[in-house]
Protein backbone atom coordinates (compact mmCIF):
# COMPACT_ATOMS: atom_id res chain seq x y z
CA UNK A 1 0.00 0.00 0.00
CA UNK A 2 1.27 3.47 -0.89
CA UNK A 3 2.17 5.62 2.08
CA UNK A 4 0.27 8.91 2.16
CA UNK A 5 1.93 12.28 1.71
CA UNK A 6 0.89 13.27 5.22
CA UNK A 7 2.61 10.25 6.71
CA UNK A 8 5.76 10.84 4.68
CA UNK A 9 5.83 14.50 5.69
CA UNK A 10 5.59 13.45 9.34
CA UNK A 11 8.64 11.24 8.83
CA UNK A 12 10.50 14.03 7.03
CA UNK A 13 9.87 16.26 10.04
CA UNK A 14 11.71 13.69 12.13
CA UNK A 15 14.68 14.01 9.78
CA UNK A 16 13.94 10.97 7.61
CA UNK A 17 15.58 11.77 4.27
CA UNK A 18 14.42 8.49 2.70
CA UNK A 19 10.81 9.61 3.16
CA UNK A 20 11.73 12.92 1.55
CA UNK A 21 13.12 11.13 -1.48
CA UNK A 22 9.86 9.19 -1.85
CA UNK A 23 7.93 12.48 -1.82
CA UNK A 24 10.24 14.03 -4.40
CA UNK A 25 9.96 11.05 -6.75
CA UNK A 26 6.19 11.08 -6.38
CA UNK A 27 5.82 14.76 -7.28
CA UNK A 28 8.84 15.35 -9.48
CA UNK A 29 6.99 15.43 -12.80
CA UNK A 30 4.42 18.01 -11.68
CA UNK A 31 7.12 20.15 -10.08
CA UNK A 32 9.34 19.92 -13.15
CA UNK A 33 6.52 20.82 -15.56
CA UNK A 34 5.56 23.86 -13.52
CA UNK A 35 9.21 24.92 -13.45
CA UNK A 36 9.47 24.35 -17.20
CA UNK A 37 6.32 26.42 -17.78
CA UNK A 38 7.96 29.27 -15.90
CA UNK A 39 11.57 29.20 -17.11
CA UNK A 40 11.25 27.56 -20.54
CA UNK A 41 14.46 25.53 -20.69
CA UNK A 42 14.99 22.00 -19.40
CA UNK A 43 18.30 22.72 -17.70
CA UNK A 44 16.86 25.77 -15.94
CA UNK A 45 13.80 23.79 -14.89
CA UNK A 46 16.08 21.15 -13.36
CA UNK A 47 18.00 23.83 -11.47
CA UNK A 48 14.76 25.34 -10.21
CA UNK A 49 13.53 21.95 -9.00
CA UNK A 50 16.80 21.23 -7.25
CA UNK A 51 16.78 24.55 -5.42
CA UNK A 52 13.08 24.33 -4.58
CA UNK A 53 13.44 20.78 -3.23
CA UNK A 54 16.24 21.86 -0.92
CA UNK A 55 14.14 24.80 0.25
CA UNK A 56 11.21 22.50 0.94
CA UNK A 57 13.43 20.26 3.09
CA UNK A 58 14.58 23.29 5.09
CA UNK A 59 11.07 24.64 5.60
CA UNK A 60 9.11 21.41 5.95
CA UNK A 61 7.76 22.58 9.33
CA UNK A 62 5.97 25.37 7.46
CA UNK A 63 3.90 22.88 5.46
CA UNK A 64 0.64 23.47 7.32
CA UNK A 65 -1.40 20.79 5.58
CA UNK A 66 0.84 17.76 4.96
CA UNK A 67 -1.92 16.03 3.00
CA UNK A 68 -1.51 18.84 0.45
CA UNK A 69 2.26 18.58 0.30
CA UNK A 70 2.32 18.68 -3.51
CA UNK A 71 0.46 22.01 -3.67
CA UNK A 72 2.86 23.42 -1.09
CA UNK A 73 5.87 22.12 -3.01
CA UNK A 74 4.55 23.55 -6.27
CA UNK A 75 4.20 26.94 -4.58
CA UNK A 76 7.89 26.82 -3.65
CA UNK A 77 8.77 25.74 -7.20
CA UNK A 78 6.79 28.67 -8.65
CA UNK A 79 8.49 31.19 -6.37
CA UNK A 80 11.91 29.74 -7.10
CA UNK A 81 11.16 29.79 -10.83
CA UNK A 82 10.06 33.40 -10.59
CA UNK A 83 13.40 34.35 -9.07
CA UNK A 84 15.21 32.29 -11.68
CA UNK A 85 13.23 33.93 -14.48
CA UNK A 86 14.19 37.37 -13.24
CA UNK A 87 17.83 36.32 -13.08
CA UNK A 88 17.67 34.86 -16.60
CA UNK A 89 16.04 37.99 -17.96
CA UNK A 90 18.83 40.10 -16.55
CA UNK A 91 21.45 37.71 -17.85
CA UNK A 92 19.84 37.57 -21.31
CA UNK A 93 20.38 41.28 -21.75
CA UNK A 94 24.08 40.71 -21.19
CA UNK A 95 24.35 37.49 -23.19
CA UNK A 96 26.78 37.16 -26.07
CA UNK A 97 24.27 34.91 -27.83
CA UNK A 98 22.21 37.98 -28.65
CA UNK A 99 25.22 39.51 -30.33
CA UNK A 100 26.44 36.30 -32.00
CA UNK A 101 23.56 34.61 -33.84
CA UNK A 102 26.02 32.28 -35.60
CA UNK A 103 26.83 30.55 -32.34
CA UNK A 104 23.18 29.70 -31.73
CA UNK A 105 22.66 28.61 -35.32
CA UNK A 106 25.56 26.20 -35.25
CA UNK A 107 24.15 24.55 -32.16
CA UNK A 108 20.82 23.92 -33.85
CA UNK A 109 22.49 22.24 -36.84
CA UNK A 110 23.26 19.21 -34.71
CA UNK A 111 19.87 18.89 -33.12
CA UNK A 112 18.08 15.60 -33.40
CA UNK A 113 14.48 15.44 -34.47
CA UNK A 114 13.47 14.98 -30.87
CA UNK A 115 15.36 18.09 -29.80
CA UNK A 116 13.89 20.05 -32.67
CA UNK A 117 10.38 18.98 -31.70
CA UNK A 118 11.05 19.91 -28.11
CA UNK A 119 12.39 23.31 -29.11
CA UNK A 120 9.34 23.94 -31.29
CA UNK A 121 6.98 23.06 -28.45
CA UNK A 122 8.92 25.23 -26.04
CA UNK A 123 8.75 28.17 -28.43
CA UNK A 124 5.01 27.65 -28.84
CA UNK A 125 4.44 27.41 -25.11
CA UNK A 126 6.48 30.55 -24.55
CA UNK A 127 3.81 32.49 -26.43
CA UNK A 128 1.15 31.54 -23.87
CA UNK A 129 0.55 33.31 -20.55
CA UNK A 130 2.36 31.49 -17.77
CA UNK A 131 -0.74 30.07 -16.04
CA UNK A 132 -1.99 28.67 -19.34
CA UNK A 133 1.38 26.98 -19.79
CA UNK A 134 1.15 25.43 -16.35
CA UNK A 135 -2.41 24.24 -16.85
CA UNK A 136 -1.85 22.74 -20.27
CA UNK A 137 1.28 20.90 -19.14
CA UNK A 138 -0.27 19.56 -15.95
CA UNK A 139 -3.52 18.56 -17.63
CA UNK A 140 -2.53 17.42 -21.10
CA UNK A 141 0.92 16.08 -20.34
CA UNK A 142 0.86 15.05 -16.69
CA UNK A 143 -2.72 13.85 -16.96
CA UNK A 144 -4.08 15.61 -13.88
CA UNK A 145 -7.81 16.31 -13.62
CA UNK A 146 -8.98 19.90 -13.39
CA UNK A 147 -9.56 19.57 -9.66
CA UNK A 148 -5.98 18.44 -9.14
CA UNK A 149 -4.59 21.16 -11.41
CA UNK A 150 -6.64 23.78 -9.57
CA UNK A 151 -5.43 22.57 -6.18
CA UNK A 152 -1.79 22.61 -7.22
CA UNK A 153 -1.93 26.03 -8.84
CA UNK A 154 -4.23 27.73 -6.32
CA UNK A 155 -6.85 28.56 -8.94
CA UNK A 156 -10.49 27.54 -9.30
CA UNK A 157 -11.59 24.55 -11.35
CA UNK A 158 -13.47 26.92 -13.61
CA UNK A 159 -10.31 28.92 -14.29
CA UNK A 160 -8.39 25.72 -14.92
CA UNK A 161 -10.90 24.73 -17.60
CA UNK A 162 -10.83 28.16 -19.14
CA UNK A 163 -7.03 28.35 -19.19
CA UNK A 164 -6.86 24.91 -20.80
CA UNK A 165 -9.37 25.79 -23.47
CA UNK A 166 -7.56 29.04 -24.30
CA UNK A 167 -4.16 27.35 -24.26
CA UNK A 168 -5.26 24.59 -26.63
CA UNK A 169 -6.78 27.04 -29.08
CA UNK A 170 -3.65 29.15 -29.05
CA UNK A 171 -1.36 26.14 -29.47
CA UNK A 172 -3.38 24.91 -32.42
CA UNK A 173 -2.95 28.27 -34.09
CA UNK A 174 0.78 28.46 -33.33
CA UNK A 175 1.67 24.87 -34.14
CA UNK A 176 -0.73 24.30 -37.00
CA UNK A 177 -0.02 20.94 -38.62
CA UNK A 178 3.51 20.83 -37.32
CA UNK A 179 2.95 18.07 -34.81
CA UNK A 180 1.18 15.79 -37.25
CA UNK A 181 4.21 15.92 -39.55
CA UNK A 182 6.73 15.05 -36.89
CA UNK A 183 8.02 11.48 -36.50
CA UNK A 184 6.78 9.44 -33.59
CA UNK A 185 8.85 10.31 -30.53
CA UNK A 186 8.03 7.41 -28.23
Amino acid at each position, binding site marked *: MTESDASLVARVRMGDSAAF*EVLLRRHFRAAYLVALARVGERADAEDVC*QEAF*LRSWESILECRDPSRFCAWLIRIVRNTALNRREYLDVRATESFDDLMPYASASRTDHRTDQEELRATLQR*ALAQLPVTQREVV*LLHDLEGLAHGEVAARLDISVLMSRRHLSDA*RKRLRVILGDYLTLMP*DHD
Partner: protein
Amino acid sequence: MTDSRTPPQDGRADLRALAPSQPQADRVIGAVMAGLAARSQGVARSRPDALEIVGRSLPPAWIAAAAVLLTAVSLAVLARRGPADSTSAGETVAMWATQEHVPTNAELLGAFQGYER
Protein backbone atom coordinates in the same frame (compact mmCIF):
# COMPACT_ATOMS: atom_id res chain seq x y z
CA MET B 1 0.13 6.76 -25.73
CA THR B 2 -1.18 8.58 -28.76
CA ASP B 3 0.53 8.47 -32.10
CA SER B 4 1.85 11.94 -32.81
CA ARG B 5 1.27 11.43 -36.56
CA THR B 6 -2.48 11.52 -36.05
CA PRO B 7 -4.19 14.74 -35.02
CA PRO B 8 -5.23 14.69 -31.36
CA GLN B 9 -8.89 13.75 -31.00
CA ASP B 10 -9.83 16.31 -28.34
CA GLY B 11 -7.87 19.27 -29.69
CA ARG B 12 -4.89 18.85 -27.43
CA ALA B 13 -1.35 19.16 -28.71
CA ASP B 14 0.99 16.25 -28.20
CA LEU B 15 3.39 17.58 -25.62
CA ARG B 16 5.14 14.34 -24.70
CA ALA B 17 8.48 15.60 -25.96
CA LEU B 18 8.51 18.00 -23.03
CA ALA B 19 8.02 15.32 -20.37
CA PRO B 20 10.95 14.80 -18.01
CA SER B 21 12.85 11.58 -18.50
CA GLN B 22 13.71 9.12 -15.75
CA PRO B 23 17.43 10.03 -15.93
CA GLN B 24 16.44 13.67 -15.42
CA ALA B 25 14.47 12.78 -12.32
CA ASP B 26 17.33 10.63 -11.03
CA ARG B 27 19.83 13.41 -11.68
CA VAL B 28 17.85 16.14 -9.91
CA ILE B 29 16.69 14.06 -6.96
CA GLY B 30 20.12 12.45 -6.63
CA ALA B 31 21.74 15.88 -6.45
CA VAL B 32 19.26 17.01 -3.80
CA MET B 33 19.80 13.92 -1.66
CA ALA B 34 23.58 14.22 -2.02
CA GLY B 35 23.32 17.87 -1.00
CA LEU B 36 21.32 16.96 2.08
CA ALA B 37 23.80 14.25 3.03
CA ALA B 38 26.78 16.58 2.60
CA ARG B 39 25.01 19.28 4.54
CA SER B 40 24.20 17.01 7.48
CA GLN B 41 27.80 15.77 7.61
CA GLY B 42 29.09 19.33 7.45
CA VAL B 43 26.80 20.40 10.26
CA ALA B 44 27.92 17.47 12.39
CA ARG B 45 31.56 18.34 11.80
CA SER B 46 31.25 22.06 12.23
CA ARG B 47 28.93 22.21 15.23
CA PRO B 48 31.03 22.00 18.44
CA ASP B 49 29.07 21.82 21.66
CA ALA B 50 28.95 24.73 24.06
CA LEU B 51 31.56 23.31 26.43
CA GLU B 52 33.95 22.80 23.54
CA ILE B 53 33.60 26.43 22.48
CA VAL B 54 34.21 27.66 26.03
CA GLY B 55 37.10 25.26 26.45
CA ARG B 56 38.79 26.50 23.29
CA SER B 57 38.42 30.18 23.99
CA LEU B 58 39.22 30.46 27.72
CA PRO B 59 42.24 29.39 29.82
CA PRO B 60 41.48 26.61 32.36
CA ALA B 61 41.93 28.90 35.38
CA TRP B 62 39.21 31.20 34.09
CA ILE B 63 36.89 28.28 33.56
CA ALA B 64 37.46 27.06 37.12
CA ALA B 65 36.90 30.54 38.51
CA ALA B 66 33.75 31.00 36.45
CA ALA B 67 32.39 27.65 37.58
CA VAL B 68 33.05 28.45 41.23
CA LEU B 69 31.55 31.92 40.95
CA LEU B 70 28.49 30.55 39.24
CA THR B 71 28.09 27.99 41.99
CA ALA B 72 28.65 30.63 44.65
CA VAL B 73 26.06 32.97 43.22
CA SER B 74 23.54 30.17 42.84
CA LEU B 75 24.09 28.96 46.35
CA ALA B 76 24.01 32.46 47.77
CA VAL B 77 20.60 32.96 46.21
CA LEU B 78 19.43 29.66 47.60
CA ALA B 79 20.93 30.45 50.99
CA ARG B 80 18.86 33.61 51.24
CA ARG B 81 15.74 31.56 50.94
CA GLY B 82 16.95 28.83 53.29
CA PRO B 83 17.32 28.67 57.08
CA ALA B 84 19.86 30.67 59.05
CA ASP B 85 22.46 27.95 59.39
CA SER B 86 23.06 27.98 55.60
CA THR B 87 25.12 31.17 56.01
CA SER B 88 28.15 29.10 56.89
CA ALA B 89 27.81 27.22 53.62
CA GLY B 90 27.75 30.51 51.75
CA GLU B 91 30.91 31.59 53.49
CA THR B 92 32.59 28.34 52.61
CA VAL B 93 31.69 28.78 48.96
CA ALA B 94 32.84 32.39 48.99
CA MET B 95 36.14 31.20 50.41
CA TRP B 96 36.45 28.63 47.63
CA ALA B 97 35.77 31.37 45.10
CA THR B 98 38.50 33.63 46.42
CA GLN B 99 40.92 30.71 46.45
CA GLU B 100 39.81 29.58 42.97
CA HIS B 101 39.20 26.20 44.47
CA VAL B 102 36.92 23.83 42.59
CA PRO B 103 34.98 21.88 45.22
CA THR B 104 34.52 18.16 44.93
CA ASN B 105 31.11 16.56 45.26
CA ALA B 106 32.02 15.44 48.75
CA GLU B 107 32.99 18.97 49.80
CA LEU B 108 29.77 20.36 48.42
CA LEU B 109 27.72 17.73 50.22
CA GLY B 110 29.66 18.42 53.41
CA ALA B 111 29.17 22.17 53.17
CA PHE B 112 25.46 21.91 52.48
CA GLN B 113 24.82 18.87 54.62
CA GLY B 114 23.24 16.75 51.96
CA TYR B 115 21.00 17.27 48.98
CA GLU B 116 18.13 18.89 50.77
CA ARG B 117 19.64 22.37 50.85
